[in-house]
């Protein structure tokens, strides 16, 4: 890479165009196929997955609200997005262990695309094991599929269903754990099948 040749500077791959193109393709896949889990471990090095999602989606034209303070000050100039109040933000980053206390932008009937996209950091995403077992149905799902999520306050799921109850208004969610991502677009119907205390580990 020329930047490294010239100054010897190290740049994390999540900030490079080639990586971001691959991650964007992956994001499109998980949002088109709700319930699909993509693992980004090979791209991340030491970066958290939520930072890679933000690096891929954000630029200087959009706003971001970091509700739980997951980002460091040095991340902001790299992301280029401007800080915003959560009610007006295009993108919202949250720690999902804490229940939501805000109303994101849901879009308008003429411009539903003006809605916010939520990036929720959870403890783990898995097909079999987790605190909350979800059933997903809707466009992009062949019949129905199940997914288990740990480290998410149940209020998020209830609130998300309420926000998405008047289609085309609603929000799109991207759930991330340390390395995996899961897309929950507003068209997906999410049903809580089971809430376990031990995370499904027997």
């Amino acid at each position, binding site marked *: 890479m020329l930047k490294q040749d*010239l100054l*010897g500077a190290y740049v994390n791959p999540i900030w490079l165009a080639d990586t971001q193109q691959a991650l964007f393709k992956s994001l499109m896949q998980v949002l088109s196929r709700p319930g699909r889990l993509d693992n980004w471990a090979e791209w991340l090095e030491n970066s958290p997955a939520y930072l890679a999602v933000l690096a891929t989606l954000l630029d200087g034209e959009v706003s971001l609200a970091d509700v739980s303070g997951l980002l460091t000050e040095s991340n902001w*100039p790299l992301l280029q997005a401007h800080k915003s109040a959560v009610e007006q933000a295009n993108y919202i980053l949250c720690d999902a262990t804490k229940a939501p206390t805000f109303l994101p932008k849901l879009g308008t009937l003429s411009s539903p695309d003006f809605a916010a996209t939520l990036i929720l950091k959870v403890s783990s995403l898995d097909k079999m094991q987790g605190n909350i077992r979800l059933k997903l149905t809707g466009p992009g799902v062949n019949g129905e599929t199940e997914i288990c999520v740990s480290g998410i306050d149940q209020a998020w799921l209830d609130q998300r269903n309420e926000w998405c109850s008047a289609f085309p208004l609603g929000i799109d969610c991207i759930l991330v754990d340390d390395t995996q991502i899961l897309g929950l677009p507003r068209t997906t119907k999410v049903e809580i099948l089971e809430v376990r205390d031990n995370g499904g580990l027997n």
Partner: protein
Amino acid sequence: MNKTCCKIPRSQWIRALKRVHVDEIKAVIDSVINEYDVSYKSIPQSGLGVLQTKDTALHEPYFLGEFPIAISWVALTDKQGNTFEGAAQLMDDDENLASLFAVCDAILANDLVACCKLADLIEMGDFKFEQEALTRKAMLGSTAVDFSLLGATNEENKEDTSA
């Protein structure tokens, strides 16, 4: 304001550096860059910018057109852990050149090693800029039209017609 050995104001450093051969700047930077860890505060980028202005008749905004722009913001960290920042924004399509100039900016603004060598290059570039400015001014002066004579000619024509 940081202490620096460069007499030229900071706002004119990039303009002056653009008039110096890149290899000369690179040679200076190469000789000192190993003293520092370089990191990017924001990702160097190049692209097209648009400049908006107002027309003088209706005072409505319009875009003059696109121009190339490259930006870079770097941090140099020395062996003692001290960090020095520099940035550059220039009309060019090469973000690596912007990064090189950003390093120059950091060195000059913080009076680091090789500051004086870079200051010499900047003075040389500034001198070239002044020369170019004089040449342009002379060219512009040679194409100037004196419209005051036009009014006098019209009045003479009117007098001729009435006579």
